[in-house]
């Protein structure tokens, strides 16, 4: 199997099938990271398509100083930012948050509340901190890759991540109603003590 760099060279030499391979390889992860920021599937699809087209148009400028994936992510996030440039930052309506909760799962309501709470706090983070946190925690990217995508120094990417995690800890730890349980069946259960006591009443 060819590496991304080899495929890029083939594309530069006029081999469109090599670009097809790159699309198949990265479209899913690109859609995931874009969807995380847009929260709308149709919009995320558009951005992913635009990003791949831009990548093809500019592929002769790609010199391999970063990974192809990082370069692609950078294009996608910049494209997403441009789409959102004129939109003011809307307050998160947690009812609109699309949750991937299995309705049959035990304590699904509890987990749903907890997810909403945590996601709301993540959304309140400054953009660069939120981006660094998302790319690290959800995409498992290295700080070097995060720095390339965010077009900032390595230490800045790390600092943004640190601040994000510490800020979340400060906000969530201060909530008396939240207690953290051990990981259970691949999902972390949170007991919202105040909510459960309300239901009992």
């Amino acid at each position: 199997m060819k590496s991304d760099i080899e495929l890029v060279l083939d594309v530069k030499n006029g081999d469109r099938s090599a670009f097809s391979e790159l699309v198949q390889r990265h479209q899913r992860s690109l859609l995931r990271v874009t969807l995380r920021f847009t929260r709308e599937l149709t919009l995320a699809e558009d951005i992913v398509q635009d990003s791949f087209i831009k990548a093809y148009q500019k592929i002769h400028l790609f010199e391999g100083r970063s990974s192809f994936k990082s370069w692609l992510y950078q294009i996608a996030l910049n494209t997403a930012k441009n789409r959102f440039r004129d939109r003011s930052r809307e307050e998160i309506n947690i009812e609109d948050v699309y949750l991937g909760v299995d309705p049959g799962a035990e304590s699904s309501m509890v987990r749903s509340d907890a997810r909403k709470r945590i996601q709301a706090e993540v959304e309140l983070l400054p953009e660069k901190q939120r981006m660094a946190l998302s790319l690290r925690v959800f995409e498992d990217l290295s700080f070097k890759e995060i720095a390339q995508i965010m077009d900032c120094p390595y230490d800045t990417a790390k600092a943004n991540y640190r601040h994000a995690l510490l800020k979340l800890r400060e906000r969530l730890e201060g909530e008396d109603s939240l207690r953290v349980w051990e990981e259970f069946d691949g999902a972390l259960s949170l007991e919202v003590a105040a909510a459960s006591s309300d239901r009992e009443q």
Partner: protein
Amino acid sequence: MVKGSRQQQPSNRLFQDEGWVDHLENEIEANLRDDLEILLKNSEPDRRIRSSLEQIRTLVRNSDEVVLPESGHFYQNMHDRIMAQVETMPTPSASVHRSSWNIKALRRNRWSRRAGPVGVMMVLAVMSWLGVRSVDSGQENQSAPAQVAAAQGTNKSVPVSNERSLELELAVVSGTESGAFAESVTDSVLTHETQDDLLLAAVDRRLQDLSQAEAEAVLSGLMAN
């Protein structure tokens, strides 16, 4: 050396929170890692902060709300839409063409658009006259062949190549020259697509040889036409 190990932090932690984030992410230098392991074993406050950071991280990760479509058709369709657009685009390496940039730069020159082919021919004629004048001052007002003869007599080299190549270009443009000469000229202007572009390139080269005052005089004369 663990930072702050000799100082008591307000929460009795011996290591800064930022450092524990780095430890959680395996971003700690190797020589510090062992010290921190010892610290974790012996300092309850530091153990608590390290543990809570890990839990927050896990909380965030497991709260991921993004659920991607699972259908293979979805991704196949997206791929096909992308490739359909890519098929209509030129290959990236061929899209950058320096000669076409040069032509575009020349086309942007307003005077050449206004002048048109006839005006450009007049400019070439003027430059031809200016080209003769640029030969050594002692040989002014002589025809080119006379200059060559004089130069040969004095063993001086004479710049006839500029004038000759100008003649060739004029001949090609006017269509009076054919065969080898035309071919030799066109070889040097292969990047040009039309006769107009050939004229523009010739004129541009001549302009570059002129002084500022001479170029302005030519252009103002052209504008008057």
